[in-house]
């Protein structure tokens, strides 16, 4: 691949490993800061809250065996790291004998699908709006309308979600407010099901898109204004290049680069915010599952989900980092 140097690749991959390792370590440390043996403490808390754990003796035995809880902390840590990265995170406390990984892998596709679509749409729309806001050639009526698209920028996505449900589902009765699909359609690759899934995804996706769009637009506007002030813009105009060519090849092409970097940083917070959006819409993804895990005091599932979220975000950032040199040749040129 053009522009990918070995050093860059190594550095980015190092960051990827570091992110996952740090995340895992934090998840390992937190429960151990609480006093006592983690498993019995977990079960104790579960029972004190009125939960009933079936086969709890068996659960504890299997647990101790897998984590080596009778052994010193550093061995526990190594075992934990090994088990986690081999996707063997043990059993769910609330749905024993189902394993954490099975439960999560069932809900993961829903989240990834909706999240990727919503993030891409908000990125494209937001940058388009921002670029047009800053561009001198934008027709006046369009320019005066653009700021209205930023109304929802500062509101958390899940709050907008509540308002969207209220307006579109309860008042206007236009779109479904909960779930990923209707019970009456049969899941599978048939058009009826896909259409149904899409209808259910509109409101949650809209909540994320409307909120996220604005920050991209504001960032893009700033970059575009800076690009517009550069000498090469004057030169391009003097050469008689068309307005469209200057906008795309000279303006947007340069202004979009920091935005892609910002996307890498934002993915983590987008994913975090999405957890709550899912819960509001009872969307059958990982966020709703996390909420149920909290309600059931299912700490193993909870930690598993958090691990998956960290890995998912790290992978997204890695992919972004690896494509970055392709759109910005300077990244690799600097090294030579």
């Amino acid at each position: 691949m053009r522009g990918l140097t070995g050093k860059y690749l190594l550095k980015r991959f190092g960051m990827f490993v570091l992110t996952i390792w740090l995340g895992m370590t934090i998840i390992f440390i937190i429960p151990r800061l609480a006093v006592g043996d983690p498993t019995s403490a977990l079960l104790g808390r579960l029972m004190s809250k009125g939960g009933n754990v079936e086969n709890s003796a068996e659960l504890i035995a299997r647990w101790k065996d897998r984590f080596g809880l009778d052994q010193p902390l550093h061995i526990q840590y190594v075992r934990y790291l090994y088990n986690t990265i081999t996707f063997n995170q043990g059993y769910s406390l609330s749905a024993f004998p189902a394993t954490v990984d099975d439960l999560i892998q069932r809900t993961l596709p829903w989240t990834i699908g909706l999240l990727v679509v919503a993030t891409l749409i908000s990125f494209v729309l937001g940058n388009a709006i921002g670029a047009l806001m800053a561009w001198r050639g934008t027709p006046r009526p369009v320019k005066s309308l653009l700021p209205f698209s930023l109304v929802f920028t500062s509101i958390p996505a899940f709050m907008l979600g509540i308002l969207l449900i209220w307006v579109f589902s309860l008042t206007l009765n236009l779109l479904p407010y909960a779930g990923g699909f209707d019970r009456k359609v049969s899941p599978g690759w048939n058009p009826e099901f896909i259409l149904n899934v899409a209808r259910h995804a509109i409101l949650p996706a809209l909540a994320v898109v409307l909120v996220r769009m604005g920050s991209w637009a504001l960032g893009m506007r700033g970059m575009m204004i800076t690009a517009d002030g550069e000498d090469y813009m004057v030169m391009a105009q003097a050469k008689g290049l068309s307005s469209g060519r200057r906008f795309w090849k000279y303006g947007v092409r340069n202004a979009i680069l920091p935005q892609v970097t910002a996307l890498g940083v934002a993915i983590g917070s987008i994913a975090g915010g999405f957890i709550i959006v899912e819960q509001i819409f009872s969307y059958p993804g990982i966020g709703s599952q996390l909420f149920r895990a909290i309600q059931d005091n299912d700490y193993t599932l909870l930690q598993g989900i958090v691990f998956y979220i960290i890995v998912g975000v790290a992978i997204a950032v890695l992919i972004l980092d690896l494509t970055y040199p392709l759109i910005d040749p300077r990244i690799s040129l600097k090294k030579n």
Partner: protein
Amino acid sequence: MSAITADQNPPAQAMTRLKARLDSPWINAKLISGLLLLLVVATTELFGPLIVDPKLALIGSSPTNVVPFWVTNFDKKQGFKAPNLEHPLGTESKGRDMLAVVLVGTPRTLRVGLIGATIGLIVGTALGFIAGFAGGWVDTVISTLADVMLTIPGLAVLIVIASYATELEIVNMGLIMALFAWPLPTRVIRAQVLSLREHGFIQLARLSGASTFDIMFKEMMPNLLPFLAASFTETVALVILATIGVETLGLGPTRIPTLGMTINNALQQAAIFRGMWWWWGPPIVMLVLIFVGLFLMTIGLDEVANPRLRKVRTQ
């Protein structure tokens, strides 16, 4: 030339001075309106206890399901009770007075945001300065750590922490939030320090023998102020967003009502579908005011820091 004219006409001189002062980039409509909005929200801290008894924010302190005072057409089948001026914003299904909940919850939310962001900003600025000045491996370690922390979804880890630390107090909540609030200011300040270091006036100060301390605080700090202020408002918003997120999921402080906890209660009791908009509405209105205020301040401060953004506005 202007000095002579000014001498001859003192009122005109005063006018020019006033104009010059009003021309200051800090007099920015967005910044000021955002600040005013937040001040209005913050007055709940002072006037809240005068308007309503905070005890009414506790479970069972009031009759349940009272509608707000201006509602005349309500569904009695749902168990809603007629409006009552003692509970102007109505009450929810556990017998909390909504006005009290909002007036007690809002200052708490603001406090967590301020505590978390202040500590995050102080630590983040210090690290940003150190990274920018020291360079070398120190810089590599700090910026790598900041990048990694930015990648890890803070909310996800906060959820794990909050699920173990039951009964969190407001201050502890703010401290935990600070763990995830420092990387953003670190990055911003480091980048600014690196670019300022190459400026003529800093090199001149160094050549004339100014100490590193003087360069940091006397030469650089005034130039960094708008950036610091912008990352502060942005960080407050991030911290409040994370706090509300954790609370909406049903974690965090549970003894005293917070805005996020109220939204969580409303969701759990299906308030949206039962038509009890006065349950989830008031906390959301308060939060929207807070977020809009912070947002206006952030973009106002961005314009203070970056004169180019100002020019376009006046075009």
